[in-house]
C-alpha cells in the first residue's frame, strides 16, 4: 500500500520519530487542564472519610449522631450500610498461587490498617465534612498487631484475614534445571539478604473522584483520577449491580499516576454509592495525608538470593526467595500477587541463567495495601541481580561491565525464553552496555576513580542493565490469573465531513504525552497534518472497549490499534479518491492535504473533498461502498516485547557526612522505534528521578504499632529539582520484531534501572572498606552505620 507520507515532492514529513512538542502542554501550563477537582456541578456535596487510627481493631460500635446533627451535613455512610449497596471487592485470580480475600469499601467488622476508611460524610463543603468526621464516635477493641512480614508467617501469628486461614496470601515458584547441584559445584557463590523498603508514588494530583447519579435516566457518571477508567467501569457494574452501558467513567486530565492510580479504590465505590443514594453529585478529593495513608504503597520486600558462577564468571545458577509485605488488602484487579510475582519473574534479568529456582511469598500485614508503582517488582529485582553481579565481579576480580558482557543473552539467542517463562523477542543488552561505556568514557572515569581513591575520596561507579516486558498482549497476562482483558486495546479513527480526524482510545493519558504520540501515529497513517488530528481518551462513553494505561502498554497497544484503524481509513480514502478521479487507487500519491494521480499533479482531490463525498454524495461513492469514513480496530500484540537499558551512575560519598552526590548519570535505552524522542527523554528523566528517590531518599516508615511515621512530605522525602542530577540520555533503536510499528513500551524503565545503578555506585565507592549495600534507600544514616561498623 502507498505510504501516505513519504512519496512525492510535497509529501508530508513523517511525524513518527520527530521531536514534536507536547500538544497537551499549553493546556496544562495555562491552568486549563480539566482535573476532577475542576468540576463543580450544581448541588454538589463534598465528602470526607473517617480513617482508622488503629492498625488492627474490632469495630464495636459507630455513633454518627453528633456528626449528622452538625449543620451542613447531609449524610453518613458506614461499612454496614455500604455493604447493602455494594458487594465487597474481591480481586479474583484463577491461579492457586493467590488466596482471594475481601476488601470492603468501608471497614466492616474490623480495621486492618491505619488510614483505612471507616465512614464517609457528605456535606455542604469539605470544612464541615471534616468537622463532622471528628464527631463520629467509633469504639474500637484493639486486636493483636501484625506488622512484621516474617513474624506474620509464624503459625502463632494472628490473622489479617480470618477467611484465608493464613497471612500467606501469595505463594509461587519458578524453576529451571537443578539449581542446587549447580550451586554446589559452582566456583564462586555470592549470597545476600537484600531489603528494598516501602515506597509510594506521590502524584502531583492527589486521588479524587466525583460521582453523579442521574435519577431520570438511571445513569451513573464517575469522574476519577484513574489510570484505568475501563477497569473501574467494568468492576462497578458488578459491585453496584448496574448495567455496563449505564455507567460512564471519565478520567480526563490526571496529574500523574505512576501505577498508583491503576487500581480500584474504596473511595470510588463509596462516592458512587453516596451519590446514588442521595441523588446529588458527591466529590471527594484526597489530601496529601490521605494520599500517604491510603494510596497504595510499593515494593517492600526481603529478598534472599544466591548466584553461582564458574571460574570464568559465567552464571551457573540463581536461587532466590522473595518475601513481600503486601499490607492489609489484595487490591483490585491486580491482587496481592502483582509485586512479589513480578519480582521473582524478572530476577534473572538480561542474563543467561541455566538453572533457577525462585520462590515468592506475599504476606498480609496491618499496613496500607501494596499496589503497582512504576517498575512493579523490577526495581527490587534489578537491585538484587545487579547487586549479585557486582559482588561476583569483586570476588572474581572482573570489571562490573566485563562480567555482564560475559553473561548477557546474546543476539543469536533471541527469541529467548527466561527461566520464569518470559519470552524476550529481541533486545540490545550488549550494545547498550558498550554504548554506555563509550559515551561515559568509562576507562577514563575508572582512572579518575583510582586517583580519587588514592587521595582518600569515596568515588564510585555503578552499572545496571535490565530488561523489562512491555506492551503485554493476551498470551502472558499483565497479572497472571486475573480475569480482565489486559492484552488488547482499540482505536476508533473518524474523519469528519470537513476532513478533520478524531481518534478515540480506551487508554488514558496521565502525563505521558499520549495526546501527542498517538496523534503522530494517526497523522502518519491517515496522511494528514497533526493539526488536523484530535485525540480523545479516558472516557468509557466515547471510546471503544479498553482498560486504560498501565504496564508500559499504551503506545504499543493503542499505537498498534491506531496503525490498524488509520490504515483502514486510509484505504477507504484511496478507494473514494480513485473513484472521484477515475484512477486506480494504486496510482494515487499524497501531496499536502490531497491525493493526486501519479505524474499528474493537476488531477487531485483534497482530503476534505474525499471526506465530504464519504458522507454526503451517494453518487460520489463507488457502487456498494458503505458511506462514512471511520474505522475501529482492536490490537493484541500477543506476547509483548522487551525493552532494555543500561544505566551508569558516578557518585561521591562524603566521608564525613555520608551524603551521596550523584556526579554523573547516563542512560542508554532501547525502546525500539521511537515515536517522539523528546517524550522518551522526558519519560527517562522522570523515571530516573523516582528511581533516585527510591535509592537515596524515600521510605515509608511504620512503627511497631502500625502507625505511619512518614505521614507528611517532610517525612517522606521525595527528590526536588535540586536533588536530581543532569542526565545524559542516549537511544538505541532496535525495532521490535513482534509489534506493529516496532514500538516498545518505555514509561517505567528509568525507575527500574536507577535504584540498582545508584546502589552499585555507592557500594563501589565504599568497596575499599569491605562493606556492601544490601538495603535501599541507602540513606546517610545507613551509610554512617555501614562505615562505622566496617566489614
Amino acid at each position, binding site marked *: 500500500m502507498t505510504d501516505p507520507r513519504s512519496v512525492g515532492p510535497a509529501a508530508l514529513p513523517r511525524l513518527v520519530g520527530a521531536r514534536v512538542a507536547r500538544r497537551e502542554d499549553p493546556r496544562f501550563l495555562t491552568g486549563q487542564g480539566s482535573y476532577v477537582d475542576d468540576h463543580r456541578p450544581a448541588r454538589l456535596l463534598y465528602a470526607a472519610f473517617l480513617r482508622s487510627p488503629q492498625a488492627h481493631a474490632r469495630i464495636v460500635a459507630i455513633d454518627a449522631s453528633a456528626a449528622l446533627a452538625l449543620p451542613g451535613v447531609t449524610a453518613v455512610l458506614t461499612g454496614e450500610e455500604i455493604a447493602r449497596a455494594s458487594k465487597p471487592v474481591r480481586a479474583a485470580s484463577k491461579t492457586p498461587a493467590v488466596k482471594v480475600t475481601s476488601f470492603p469499601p468501608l471497614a466492616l467488622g474490623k480495621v486492618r490498617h491505619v488510614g483505612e476508611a471507616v465512614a464517609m460524610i457528605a456535606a455542604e463543603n*469539605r*470544612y464541615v465534612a*471534616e*468537622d463532622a468526621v*471528628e464527631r463520629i464516635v467509633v469504639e474500637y477493641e484493639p486486636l493483636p498487631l501484625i506488622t512484621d512480614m516474617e513474624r506474620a508467617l509464624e503459625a502463632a501469628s494472628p490473622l489479617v484475614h480470618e477467611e484465608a486461614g493464613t497471612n500467606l496470601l501469595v505463594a509461587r515458584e519458578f524453576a529451571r534445571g537443578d539449581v542446587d547441584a549447580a550451586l554446589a559445584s559452582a566456583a564462586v557463590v555470592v549470597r545476600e539478604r537484600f531489603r528494598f523498603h516501602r515506597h509510594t508514588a506521590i502524584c502531583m494530583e492527589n486521588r479524587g473522584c466525583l460521582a453523579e447519579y442521574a435519577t431520570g435516566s438511571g445513569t451513573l457518571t464517575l469522574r476519577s483520577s484513574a489510570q484505568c477508567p475501563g477497569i473501574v467501569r467494568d468492576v462497578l457494574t458488578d459491585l453496584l449491580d448496574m448495567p455496563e452501558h449505564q455507567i460512564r467513567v471519565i478520567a480526563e486530565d490526571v496529574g500523574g499516576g505512576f501505577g498508583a492510580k491503576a487500581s480500584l479504590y474504596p473511595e470510588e465505590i463509596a462516592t458512587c454509592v453516596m451519590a446514588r443514594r442521595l441523588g446529588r453529585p458527591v466529590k471527594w478529593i484526597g*489530601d*496529601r*495525608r490521605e494520599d500517604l495513608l491510603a494510596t497504595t504503597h510499593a515494593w517492600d520486600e526481603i529478598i534472599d538470593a544466591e548466584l553461582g558462577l564458574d571460574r570464568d564468571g559465567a552464571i551457573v545458577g540463581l536461587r532466590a526467595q522473595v518475601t513481600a509485605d503486601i499490607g492489609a488488602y489484595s487490591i483490585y484487579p491486580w491482587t496481592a500477587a502483582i509485586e512479589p510475582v513480578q519480582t521473582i519473574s524478572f530476577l534473572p534479568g538480561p542474563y543467561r541463567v541455566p538453572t533457577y529456582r525462585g520462590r515468592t511469598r506475599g504476606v498480609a500485614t496491618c499496613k496500607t495495601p501494596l499496589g503497582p508503582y512504576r517498575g512493579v517488582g523490577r526495581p527490587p529485582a534489578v537491585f538484587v541481580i545487579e547487586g549479585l553481579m557486582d559482588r561476583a565481579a569483586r570476588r572474581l576480580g572482573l570489571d562490573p561491565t566485563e562480567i555482564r558482557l560475559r553473561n548477557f543473552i546474546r543476539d543469536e539467542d533471541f527469541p529467548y525464553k527466561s527461566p520464569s517463562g518470559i519470552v524476550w523477542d529481541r533486545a540490545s543488552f550488549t550494545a547498550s552496555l558498550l554504548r554506555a561505556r563509550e559515551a561515559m568514557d568509562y576507562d577514563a572515569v575508572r582512572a579518575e576513580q583510582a586517583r580519587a581513591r588514592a587521595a582518600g575520596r569515596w568515588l564510585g561507579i555503578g552499572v545496571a542493565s535490565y530488561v523489562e516486558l512491555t506492551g503485554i498482549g493476551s498470551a502472558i497476562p499483565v497479572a497472571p490469573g486475573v480475569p480482565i482483558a489486559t492484552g488488547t486495546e482499540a482505536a476508533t479513527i473518524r474523519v469528519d465531513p470537513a476532513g478533520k480526524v478524531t481518534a478515540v482510545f480506551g487508554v488514558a493519558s496521565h502525563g505521558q504525552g499520549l495526546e501527542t504520540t498517538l496523534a503522530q501515529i494517526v497523522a502518519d497513517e491517515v496522511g494528514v497534518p497533526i493539526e488536523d488530528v484530535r485525540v480523545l481518551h479516558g472516557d468509557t462513553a466515547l471510546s471503544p472497549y479498553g482498560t486504560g494505561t498501565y504496564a508500559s502498554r499504551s503506545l504499543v497497544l493503542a499505537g498498534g490499534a491506531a496503525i490498524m484503524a488509520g490504515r483502514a481509513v486510509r484505504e477507504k480514502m484511496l478507494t473514494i479518491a480513485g473513484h472521484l478521479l477515475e484512477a486506480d487507487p494504486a496510482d494515487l500519491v499524497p501531496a499536502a492535504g490531497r491525493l493526486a494521480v501519479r505524474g499528474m499533479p493537476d488531477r487531485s482531490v483534497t482530503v476534505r473533498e474525499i471526506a465530504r463525498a464519504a458522507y454526503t454524495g451517494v453518487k460520489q461513492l463507488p457502487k456498494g461502498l458503505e458511506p462514512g469514513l471511520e474505522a475501529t480496530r482492536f490490537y493484541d500484540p500477543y506476547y509483548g516485547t522487551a525493552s532494555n537499558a543500561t544505566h551508569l551512575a558516578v557518585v561521591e560519598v562524603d566521608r*564525613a*557526612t*555520608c*551524603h551521596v552526590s550523584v556526579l554523573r548519570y547516563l542512560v542508554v535505552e532501547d525502546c525500539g522505534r521511537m515515536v517522539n524522542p523528546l517524550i522518551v527523554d522526558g519519560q527517562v528523566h522522570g523515571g530516573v528521578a523516582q528511581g533516585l528517590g527510591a535509592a537515596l*531518599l524515600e*521510605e515509608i*516508615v511504620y512503627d511497631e504499632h502500625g502507625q505511619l*511515621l*512518614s505521614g507528611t512530605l*517532610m*517525612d517522606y*522525602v521525595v*527528590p*526536588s529539582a*535540586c*536533588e536530581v542530577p543532569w542526565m545524559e540520555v542516549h537511544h538505541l533503536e532496535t525495532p521490535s520484531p513482534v509489534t506493529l510499528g516496532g514500538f516498545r513500551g518505555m514509561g517505567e524503565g528509568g525507575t527500574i534501572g536507577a535504584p540498582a545503578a545508584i546502589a552499585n555506585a555507592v557500594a563501589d565507592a565504599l568497596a575499599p572498606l569491605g562493606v556492601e549495600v544490601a538495603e535501599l534507600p541507602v*540513606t*546517610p*544514616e545507613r551509610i*554512617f*552505620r555501614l562505615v562505622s561498623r566496617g566489614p
Partner: protein
Amino acid sequence: MKPPKFEYHAPRTVDEALALLGRYGGDAKVLAGGQSLMPLLNFRLARPAALVDLNRIPSLAFIEESGGRVRLGAMTRQRTIEFSPVVAQRLPLLKEATRWVGHLPIRTRGTIGGSIAHADPSAEYPAVLTALEGEVVARGAKGERVIKAADLFQTYLTTTLTPDEILTEVRLPAMAAGAGYALEEFSRRHGDFAIIGIAAVVVRDGQRCKTARLATAGAGPVPVRLRAAEEILERDGLGEAAIEAAARKATELVDPDSDIHASADYRRHLTGVLTKRALVRAIGVARG
C-alpha cells in the same frame, strides 16, 4: 486537611493586636508568615479560637541599625533580610543563614519573628540568635520586656513568651568588622529543616581567637550554645588541633534525639563534622 473553624482578625496596630489576644485569654494564635502555623491548622494540630494576623501592621516590618546593633521588626520577611544591605554589612551570618531557609516562596512569606517565636530547634534563625547573643522584644498587656536568646527557648516549639505577648522585634549586636562567620548545615534535601546546622562566628587576632561563637540547629529540643567548645578556641587559638578539639567537644555538648531521618549517634557525629567545617570556613574569611 482543613482547619477547624476559627475567627480571624487583622488589626492595624500592635495595641489592637494585644487587645485581641487579651480578649481570647490565651486561646488565640498570632499569624505571621504562616509557613508553619498554616500546616499545623490544616492538620488540626493547632486549634485556636482565633487568629490574630500581624500582616497588616506596617510598623512591625523594618531593619534599623543604631548604636552597634541591628533591630529587625518581627514581620520582616526572610526575603527582605536576604537582600538587605544593612544585614549584608553588619550581620553577614544572618544573611548566610537566610539562604538555608526553605525555598524562595517560603522566604517570601516567612518572617524572622515568626521563625523565632515558632521555636523549631531545627530552624536556622534560632541558631543565629543564639550564636550572636541576640535578644527579642516582647510586648504584652503589661508593657514591653526584652528576652535574651539564652532565656527564650524552652523546648520543642515552646518559648518563654506568654500567650498574651507578641514578639515585636529581634535585636542582634552588629558583628565585629572582619569577624569570620559560617553557617554549615546538613539536611536530606535542599531547603529542608536541618538535621544538624552549626552557626559559627570567629573574631581573630592573628592566630589568636578573641571571640568564638557556636550554636546548633537540630541537635536537641532547643538551639545549643557550644560554650565549652568556644572556650577551647579562645584559649588555644585557631590552629588545627584546637579546631579538632573544639569539634570533639561539640559532640559532647549536645544531646540530640533520634527520628526517622537520623539517629542521635549520627546527629552527634554530624555536630562534630559541621562544627569543624564551620570553624574552618569562618576562620578562613576572618580578618585581623
